């Protein structure tokens, strides 16, 4: 086995790992606080990436909303556009919680599945209709010209990979600080553990959950904007990514942020390495091992690696 090639593949995989970890973290935040899976997480993130695309593209024919950039005066520079798009994504996430999720707080989980699947379908179709189903070129988040890499033992680690990990770790640190040292973070932790007791202690559960949705949407939006350059922007861009992220979150334990990080790394590595060494599973089918892993984890150890064991009261 070629060691350098293996190392190279691992380095390449680490970029995806960072993306999966971010999205898995978003899923975990929502699952932890509300016990539901947001199936629309990926589409919401993609939508935010399209907003950045519109802000960047200017008024070009066939680009809906490009007039916005014209109205501002000129297409925005990449970081500003992406920052704005992420902020819009965060707002949209909070609004989704307020308008669609909160009224269903006591509803059975089928209602939640319906709403999030509905959002997924509608957003997916909306993006296809407005911006076309074909892939769009998205500017890179990090410098990624051919020379932008560091050589380690003959293999190249690209700046974008390093950048993605720096962003992810910074976000994790920020998240930890938020949860640990702010009042809202404390409230969020309390609500995650027991919403009723939290409410009895004067915590406003609704706004706190909205805060969680905003955080999750922000994480997703950042993940989408970081990866839109490498996977090309299209409406179904995050669909496969969502499966990987779900697999990562399941593997790590659906309510464990640490698990999301570890799961993301594992899934990212396996997504690159398995197709490379198992010929039947080409690039396109690399989502299959993730799905199988997810099923196996759910059957054998539903709590995942780091999640809390669920005990069902009979």
């Amino acid at each position, binding site marked *: 086995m070629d060691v350098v090639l293996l190392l190279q593949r691992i380095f390449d995989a680490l970029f995806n790992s960072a993306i999966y970890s971010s999205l898995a973290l978003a899923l975990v935040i929502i699952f932890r606080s509300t016990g539901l*899976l947001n199936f629309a997480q990926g589409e919401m993130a993609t939508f935010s990436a399209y907003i950045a695309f519109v802000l960047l593209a200017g008024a070009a024919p066939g680009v809906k909303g490009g007039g916005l950039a014209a109205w501002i005066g000129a297409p925005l520079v990449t970081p500003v556009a992406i920052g704005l798009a992420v902020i819009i994504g965060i707002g949209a996430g909070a609004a989704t919680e307020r308008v669609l999720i909160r*009224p269903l707080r006591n509803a*059975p989980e089928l209602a939640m599945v319906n709403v999030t699947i509905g*959002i997924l379908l509608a957003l997916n179709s909306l993006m296809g209709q407005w911006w076309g189903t074909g892939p769009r070129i998205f500017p890179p988040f990090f410098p990624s010209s051919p020379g932008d890499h560091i050589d380690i033992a003959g293999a190249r680690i690209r700046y974008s990979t390093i950048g993605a990990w720096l962003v992810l770790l910074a976000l994790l640190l920020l998240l930890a600080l938020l949860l640990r040292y702010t009042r809202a973070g404390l409230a969020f932790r309390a609500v995650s553990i027991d919403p009723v007791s939290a409410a009895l202690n004067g915590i406003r559960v609704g706004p706190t959950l909205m805060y969680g949705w905003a955080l999750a949407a922000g994480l997703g939006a950042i993940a989408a904007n970081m990866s839109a350059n490498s996977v090309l922007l299209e409406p179904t861009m995050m669909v496969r990514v969502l499966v990987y992220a779900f697999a990562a979150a399941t593997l790590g334990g659906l309510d464990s942020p640490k698990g999301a990080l570890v799961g993301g790394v594992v899934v990212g590595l396996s997504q690159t390495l398995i197709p490379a060494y198992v010929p039947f599973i080409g690039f396109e089918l690399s989502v299959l091992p993730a799905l199988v892993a997810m099923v196996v984890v759910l059957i054998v150890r539903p709590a995942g690696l780091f999640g809390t064991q669920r005990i069902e009261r009979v």
Partner: protein
Amino acid sequence: MSGDDWPTPMPRPGDDDDAGAEASVFAVFAPPETEIHGAPAGAGDPGPEPEADEPAATATPRDADDPVETGALGAQPAAAGLSVRNGPPVTPTANPPVGGVVDAGGADRGVRHRRRISPLRWASAALLGVWLVAMPLTSSVTELRQNTQIIVMVLAVLGVNVATGYGGMISLGHGVFVAVGAFAAAYAVDDLALPWAVSILAGAAFAGLVGALVGLPALRIKGIHLALVTLGLAIVFQPLAKRVPAFSGGVSGRAVGAELVPPSWFGTTRWAEGLYRYLICLAVVGLAMWVTYNVINSRPGRAMRAVRDNDTAAAVHGVNLVASRVNTFAVSASLAGLAGALGIILVPFTSQESFPFQESLVLYATAVLGGLGSLWGSVLGVAIREVFSRIGELLGGVSGLGPLGEFLRLLDEEQFVFGMLLVALTFVFPRGLIGLFNRRRGLPVSPSSQDRT
């Protein structure tokens, strides 16, 4: 999880039409003590109308399907239906009406029958009948084929309904079973040169087998996690199908060589051919619905619903959970597979291209929209889907309205419309549109509500 201490989501038939406060719009939240149709409904009140009672601890009564039968069988709490076999009903003490249900079932049947049939229902039955007769006579060959495809789609939606509505297993991946049924039937009729009848059955059977395999993980994976796994299945299907070209035709798809031609006395025109296929599909769909109806109202069907409502209670009452879950998934998948197999009679071509994951989600949305836990709900769902697509076509064609025109064009997108409807429905008609026809019909969006208590 908020489910522990918030008021238990309690499916309660009856007041989805109530306007007013949010809580009453979402009928699921209403406390179980509320009266329904004036019938006494508190626990401990063995009223003469069994289905008005909502025993809190056990299963939720809900109608199976047909007005005539529901009273006797479907509306009983599933556990009660099972307890008949064991002599005196063994039910929690909080649940005395159960005994009354069993005793009063026969006597009640006629009464309920008379009361239930509403003009709306007569009208829609008549409408359906007229359409089934008039449609082929007035359609062109192409229209006839398209309409037959719509009829066939009922089976796929019904498949979702059996798994999700009756079995309580959320399935977001039924498009996969439709595709598998189509591929298997095509393989049987072409590569194995089997007769059509056998091939169609083989398609359904193979899809059922695959469904049983998928149902195996469902033994341990429940609720939202199962939704996740089935969604993953729907997403992974396309690349997987491309990898087995011998079966699926690979990237380019699979043309079906054999043709179903009518006997010579039937006529040889293309229209006669279409009519023949229409009649065959209609017969198969009707037969499959009848079989499904009987399965649902038989012992396995009651077991299915008992497992949905509370699997622990069902197991205590002697239901084999493994067999029941696998059965449910197999039945539901073979219905979807049958739809796929019939599809290749109508259009002799099938490809993984036609089954993106969105298709599975739209199938799911159709089932939910029509009404889960109701056979006619699936028919209604497909009818509504068709109505919306016609409206969308009409509105989408309007041009020159600026931003409004843009919005109207969106309405031509089935996915968009169904996504929005799915969201809206959860708030407005939690038990699906069938709830408009019969207030007791249709499952409020809560097959797994009992898991949360």
